[in-house]
């Protein structure tokens, strides 16, 4: 049985496509078997909704009268610094940027109440945001100072561009030390007080297509409540990470760089987020459709939490020290039970990624496809796969001699 994306799109156009989410497909395969399910199902939808720090947005502000050149100057949105090193009125705002006068971790743990992620959420919600620019002034761009309210609807472009999202699997964070630590994986209580994980597991996009057989550059997806595209592989994309016999990575592996029109998105799916003692970030909703082109592809989408394993890492020792040690491995089935047993202890688990909202994303995408509002795209190029032999390199430090 071989289907093509064009054939599936034809069915979508006629309102005849059969779409299930990546949780429903598990039961379907158990009931009907792979061959029958693969014949019947056209698309499996996935979803994930978690904090994703490598997110950001760029904007074209439009030119002021007289003109000002932001490039080479300084610019702020609601006091959060934006990157001004582009042309005259293009700026980039990163999710983790925080105001210059934020107390940071001066009194540890700092709250990080407001940052780039929150500005993105407010812009998307249609709120006015304060733009402050100082520039050096040129003959063609004479203005040196600008302070104004801006609103997303008045900007020429507002584009979400995330360089690394949708990690294919991730660490489970624990703390072996005897004091509480505050990390990007949440608050970790001492002596294995809790274990925090951050993946939608069986619903997560890249865990349902472990070898990137359908997901590639140009794939259209659900992004922040609107439609976006895969622009590239994400940074730190590491297909050669340790995998199980069924191909599913047991460590952080592939990643996606995604892009989409921020003006179509919604604050329900782009939420400004504060990690106590760590920083500000953005919780991003992503859902990728997987066309069922063959039985093999369907089999991958039927992966269950019980069969997906993640590494447990000590964030008080091996993580900050960049040592490769893991405390153990655990399945998402066990993690989602609320407790795991580790070193003779019952450790409560918590997730940073919302499973119920991931289901909502997968179902929204399903809805769009069933209604014919969302057609699948043919990837224009594949993501780098296992065969590329990519190695994920640490920084090579070389002393700078004066």
């Amino acid at each position: 049985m071989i289907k093509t994306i064009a054939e599936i799109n034809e069915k979508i156009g006629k309102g005849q496509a059969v779409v299930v989410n990546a949780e429903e497909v598990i039961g379907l395969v158990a009931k009907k078997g792979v061959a029958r399910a693969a014949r019947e199902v056209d698309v499996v939808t996935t979803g994930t909704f978690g904090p994703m720090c490598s997110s950001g947005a760029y904007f074209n502000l439009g030119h002021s009268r007289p003109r000002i050149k932001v490039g080479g100057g300084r610019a702020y949105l609601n006091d959060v610094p934006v990157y001004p090193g582009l042309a005259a009125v293009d700026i980039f705002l990163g999710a983790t940027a925080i105001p210059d006068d934020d107390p940071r971790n001066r009194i540890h743990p700092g709250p990080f109440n407001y940052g780039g992620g929150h500005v993105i959420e407010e812009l998307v919600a249609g709120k006015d945001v304060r733009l402050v620019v100082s520039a050096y002034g040129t003959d063609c761009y004479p203005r040196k100072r600008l302070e104004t309210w801006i609103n997303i609807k008045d900007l020429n472009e507002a584009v979400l561009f995330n360089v690394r999202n949708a990690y294919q699997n991730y660490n489970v964070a624990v703390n072996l030390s005897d004091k509480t630590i505050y990390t990007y994986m949440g608050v970790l209580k001492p002596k294995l007080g809790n274990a925090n994980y951050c993946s939608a597991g069986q619903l997560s996009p890249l865990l349902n297509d472990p070898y990137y057989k359908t997901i590639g550059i140009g794939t259209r997806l659900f992004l922040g409540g609107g439609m976006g595209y895969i622009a590239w592989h994400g940074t730190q994309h590491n297909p050669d990470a340790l995998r199980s016999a069924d191909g599913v990575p047991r460590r952080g592996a592939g990643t996606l760089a995604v892009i989409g029109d921020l003006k179509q998105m919604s604050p329900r799916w782009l939420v400004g987020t504060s990690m106590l003692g760590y920083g500000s970030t953005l919780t991003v909703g992503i859902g990728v459709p997987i066309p069922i082109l063959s039985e093999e592809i369907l089999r991958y989408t039927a992966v269950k939490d019980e069969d997906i394993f993640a590494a447990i890492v000590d964030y008080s020792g091996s993580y900050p020290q960049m040592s490769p040690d893991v405390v153990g491995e655990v399945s998402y089935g066990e993690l989602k039970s609320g407790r795991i047993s580790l070193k003779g202890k019952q450790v409560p688990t918590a997730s940073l990624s919302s499973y119920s909202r991931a289901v909502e994303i997968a179902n929204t995408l399903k809805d769009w496809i069933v209604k014919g509002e969302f057609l699948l795209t043919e990837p224009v190029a594949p993501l780098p796969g296992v065969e590329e032999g990519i190695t994920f390199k640490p920084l090579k430090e070389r002393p700078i001699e004066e």
Partner: protein
Amino acid sequence: MAISKRVVLHFPSRMVEQPIIYRLVKDYNLVLNILKASVTPKEEGIMVLELSGARADYDGGIRYLQEAGVKIQSLGQDIMRNDARCTHCGACVVICPTGALALDPKSRMVDFNEDKCTACELCVLACPPRAMEVYF
């Protein structure tokens, strides 16, 4: 002088159908934010409101409510969840010492059981989207 206060209103059952809230906005110019409302027909209705406006309007509005038979309680320190911000991630369930925040294994949503909450505030900064709010 502008003022903003959080109050709990208890409506007797006979009043549930009257346009009380509308009058607060219309006649007293108050801006109101409904933090919580549970109004069931035939029973007492409870509403937690944030009322803001000019001092004189606020006092007038409160007098109107009292005269209409609404019981008013100002809110002591209390923890409330802003349901619009909660993403149901679950990060708080290992932080809350009393089990007031717990994951429903079926729906995979996080339930907040106020009766179990001791207002210890541990969840307030630990919640990534800052959905847990302290009210005085």
